[in-house]
């Protein structure tokens, strides 16, 4: 039995050839989207220190890649025993989103993927009151308002789905990596608009977007055919009890 199985496998490799068993194209609409982040207003109920409003736009380049850009206004004000701090400003992000769902599945309506963006934050920070205590006693001073420009990178895995034609919803987590807060070593912002705590090299969070989408073009996407090894003696495999598992699981074009 073992000898017979061995001969079968040798013959299988000799005669095996990859064949295209399916070729297909799907028509996928490319969209332009514009939406706003509803997590910002919602978060205002959780933390009163932060006001954050964000809008984002994206345009599909092809079935899996979209160019994206966003603007966010943030205003932060915290009053503590030790200090008062306020910052506000505009942040801009630009980058690309990659959709991991294949075109024949997503049909331009769903997306689950990852985005990479570069962010710039134009902000103004000040600490109108800060208290200190040391051997000389307690005192108060302030840090005057100054304008700064911060830089960061953003990695955003997320999902998006078409709720009904023309309206999509989606949420994404974000991991922001600080390149520079632009304020020097001593006056790192307690909150850098568009980024988060300027004292931290990495921040995480989530955004939830409701967007309007307009299809602007339709493209035909060639779907790679799935392949399988032709095996003329498939029946023998069953006979021998061996498995012919090659890892390929295409669908047959036989009638």
């Amino acid at each position, binding site marked *: 039995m073992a000898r017979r199985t061995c001969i079968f496998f040798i013959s299988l490799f000799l005669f095996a050839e990859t064949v295209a068993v399916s070729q297909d194209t799907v028509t996928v609409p490319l969209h332009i989207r514009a939406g706003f982040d509803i997590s910002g207003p919602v978060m205002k109920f959780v933390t009163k220190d932060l006001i954050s409003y964000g809008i984002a736009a994206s345009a599909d380049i092809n079935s899996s890649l979209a160019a994206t850009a966003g603007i966010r206004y943030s205003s932060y004000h915290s009053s503590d025993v030790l200090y008062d701090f306020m910052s506000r400003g505009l942040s801009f992000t630009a980058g690309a989103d990659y959709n991991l769902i294949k075109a024949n599945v997503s049909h331009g309506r769903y997306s689950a993927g990852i985005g990479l963006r570069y962010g710039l934050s134009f902000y103004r920070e000040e600490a109108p009151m800060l208290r*200190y205590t040391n*051997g000389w006693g307690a005192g108060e001073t302030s840090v005057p308002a100054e304008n700064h420009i911060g830089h960061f990178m953003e990695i955003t895995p997320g999902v998006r789905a078409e709720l009904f034609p023309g309206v999509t919803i989606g949420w994404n987590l974000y991991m922001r990596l600080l390149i520079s807060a632009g304020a020097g070593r001593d006056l790192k912002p307690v909150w850098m608009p568009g980024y988060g705590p300027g*004292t931290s090299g990495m921040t995480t*969070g989530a955004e939830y977007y409701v967007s309007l989408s307009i299809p602007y073009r339709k493209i035909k996407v060639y779907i790679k055919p799935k392949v399988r090894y032709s095996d003329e003696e498939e029946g023998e495999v069953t006979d021998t009890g061996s498995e012919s598992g090659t890892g390929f699981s295409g669908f047959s074009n036989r009638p």
Partner: protein
Amino acid sequence: MKRLSVIIFVAVITTLVMALPSCSVQPCYEETDPVMNTILLFSGTGETAKADSLRVYTFRESDTLRFINIKGVSSFSVPLDPANDESVFLITLNGITDTAVIGYNRKPHLVSPECGYTILSEITGLWTTHNIIDTLIIENKLVNLDGQKNLHLFY
């Protein structure tokens, strides 16, 4: 519709999880008081000296601030006045008193959001009497939270 509900549920949970840390007040575990560190050295040999007694204090209009009053010490640390660009110290070393005036620039520094700000200084100059102090030199002009030695006091 079921898929939509799952997406919304996961998004809400994620948002809440992300928001929770910002609601809690974090304690401060970091050092927030910068001090000017001074080591005592024998004049001539430059070896580390151990003073029999040391008092460091200053007079103010209303009171006297005593920073140091210890025996058998070879170094000491005192804070600079964060409200002025100059601090005056009276240093009584082995019973003999000298006056030292330290001039500096000040700048606020954010320690952390939990600990708030502190005032760092950069020593710009110093002046001293010479009853027992031979020389007072600046080793490191930055008075920050690193704990480095700032002055060498030879006597």
